[in-house]
């Protein structure tokens, strides 16, 4: 059974159809990419998946259950986590605190428990902190846990966003342009991390990316959006050679560029 199944998802803003009748199926442990020109509706589609927007039409099934109409926090609790195109960390919280907020849905302690510091709360907090340190280590930020999120270098902020998303134990991770604004070395390390997320943690990944080198080398499947519509879907090499995709998005130069 597919982990995520979107059927005919349509989102309209006023007169603008941002996402139009998009179908998308993602199998478990897959790395899928969503590409397309700016304004094609990729991020809007993400926002529909995470509950920030409610689509006008269509249905989204996650793990066999419809998530239309659920609040974002409920969807996170079900197992979808995301990062943002323009990094949106909690800047004045430390790296560790950011990850602890990420764990929010997995923690159970109550306000009264916190005031009284019940054994349960104490144990849970210790476990949460330990887990946060582990996640920090997983993305390679060991030793930066007590820095304020906004004081981290740009690339580290991206990593911290991934760690925060991982903290909610997602089954599906949505990455919105994980390599945006990175230099080639950082991009390569990010690709390596995405592979590890899938291979070591078994997380299914859907990512939006403009860097064709990233998209073509790590995706199992690529979906192309243009003006809110799905215009192509398939394995990276199929999509790369699709004339419609070349015309709408890649441009003729892409063939030369990705085949050195």
């Amino acid at each position: 059974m597919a982990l995520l199944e979107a059927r005919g998802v349509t989102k309209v803003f006023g007169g603008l159809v941002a996402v139009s009748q998009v179908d998308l199926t993602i199998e478990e442990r897959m790395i899928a990419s969503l590409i397309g020109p700016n304004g094609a509706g990729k991020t809007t589609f993400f926002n529909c998946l995470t509950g920030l927007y409610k689509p006008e039409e269509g249905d989204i099934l996650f793990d066999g259950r419809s998530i239309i109409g659920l609040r974002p926090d409920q969807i996170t609790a079900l197992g979808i986590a995301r990062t943002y195109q323009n990094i949106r960390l909690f800047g004045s919280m430390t790296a560790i605190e950011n990850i602890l907020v990420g764990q929010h849905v997995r923690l159970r302690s109550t306000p009264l428990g916190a005031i009284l510091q019940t054994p349960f709360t104490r144990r849970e907090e210790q476990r949460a902190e330990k887990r946060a340190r582990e996640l920090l280590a997983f993305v390679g930020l060991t030793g930066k846990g007590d820095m304020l999120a906004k004081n981290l270098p740009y690339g580290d902020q991206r990593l911290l966003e991934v760690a925060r998303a991982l903290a909610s134990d997602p089954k599906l991770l949505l990455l919105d342009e994980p390599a945006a604004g990175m230099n080639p070395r950082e991009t390569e390390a990010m690709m390596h991390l995405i592979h590890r997320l899938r291979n070591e943690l078994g997380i299914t990944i859907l990512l939006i990316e403009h860097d064709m080198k990233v998209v073509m080398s790590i995706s199992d499947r690529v979906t192309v959006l243009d003006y809110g519509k799905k215009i192509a879907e398939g394995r990276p090499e199929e999509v790369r050679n699709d004339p419609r995709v070349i015309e709408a998005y890649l441009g003729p130069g892409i063939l030369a560029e990705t085949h050195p």
Partner: protein
Amino acid sequence: MLLPSVQRGLRIGAIAFAILTYLVLVGLPLRLGDLALPILAGAMALFFWLALRGGKSKQDVFNRQPALLFTAGLSGGLTAGLLIAALLAVFVNLTSSGVRLQPIFDKMTPPNLAALYGVAPGAIVGGELSPLAWLQQALLLTVASGVGAALVLVERWARGRPTPRISALRWIPLLLPIALFLFVLWLGMPGVTFGGNNRGTIRLLAAMVTIGAGILALRAAHPGRERQLLSLLYLAGVAYLPFTLDQFQNSVLGIVFIFVMMGLGLNIVVGFAGLLDLGYVAFFAIGAYMYAFLSAPFSSPWLSAQLQSLGIPANAPLLSFWMALPITMLAGWIGGVLLGIPVLRLRGDYLAIVTLGFGEIIRLFMLNLAELTNGPRGLLNIAPPYLFGYNLGNPRDIFILGLIGSAVIAFSAYRLDNSRLGRAWIAMREDQDVAQATGVNLVRTKLLAFAIGALFAALAGQLYAARQTNIFPENFSLFVSIDALSLVIVGGMGSIPGVVLGALALKGLPEVLRGVDEYRIVTFAALLVTMMIVRPEGIIPSTRRRRELHEEAEPVVGEDVPSVLERLAPELKSDNPDGGKK
């Protein structure tokens, strides 16, 4: 380099002159009496120190050169001194030639001027000032500015010393509260005449400064053994205060700590969760009225009628203070949720306006629902708290109850701040949408902030009602909300010790400064504005806020610092310089 220092001095001097003029105009010298000159000179020396050291970082202090410092200081002192001397000369001349200044400057009485010159009022009226007296202010201010400049140098020297010296020095601020406490005790001993008529006021001020200094000292202490030891010591000191202070002093501090309780609650709503609530007085009123209903049902026409029809005697309290506590807390909680639900979707300014309305609604409700609340005539004869038959309604015991209440609330707030809920509050304040997408249930988190904040305010309200024994709708005006919000901001948003200092400064100082009576509000407005410009994060900012507002003091971490990703990256192939399209 010399000219800029002189310019700087002129600027500082002008500010000093403005402050002094204000203090003289509001009649402070008269209040201070014999101590006017030394206190004003000391205050100005402190001002010059702060103005001359400038800047917010330690580095600035090191950069000050002695020669330039004294050039700036002395030109500043001389400017301020000559200006104030000239101004006072004009006033004295006018007074001695029979012009009455009071219609315009109503504090410009001969005694006020006389206090400043240290002579009898007759000398001012008769114009018998010695030539030296005319220049007294100029000399005094020049000396004060010199002392200020010297203080900067002392600070520079102290900061430049190797660590062992400093570690000995750091005990000075840590132990200062003990010295202040002993001073308070000494002032209270029979036969001590320090300060003359103002002895009681000075003692109150000293007691407040002791509490404030104690809090600052605890923050400066090293965590662990040292802090625990000092905490115990200071706790014992504060616990002893109510027993040594007199009625008036206890009564002022009682109100201060009722406001601490309220401020701590508001701090949760505004400081932690970032929900600007301008109608916070509503919950204070709910707490006070709920206790009043339970304690003095006979004051409410409708309640007493109901009780009579049920055959319950309505001439005695229904519940004692302690039995009423859970009910008041519940009422506050429900009030918080009721306000919270309609404003869940509102943010920032809109939230502020709606909460403002809510506060007014509750007050108008109290005012107009006369059948229940007895309207403007208020609820009377509310019972004080009793413990084992002992009446705790006197100022001293109310102060003690305020201290205990504040301690319990501060403790709870501290634990909440460092909990799952506290993190969710801060995340919500930072970025509401992302917080929700990260898994924070906004409805629950917001309602909990309102409800917990309201519960604390209701507790404060109950203590307030028990203290006043009679409450009227006018006790719960918008100004209470504004006071509570101001003390949170002045103390430092989101900072628990800051609330205590804010309450001492905003609710305590006005009592000490009764002398400036009608100028009190103006003085506070000026202080608030200055404070917000100089130190927008409050007296004791929460660590978070300080970092937010003074970023430049942080070590610079930017894009030129390699990120972890970059170091982790496998060796880059040289034939791919671009790394793909962006």
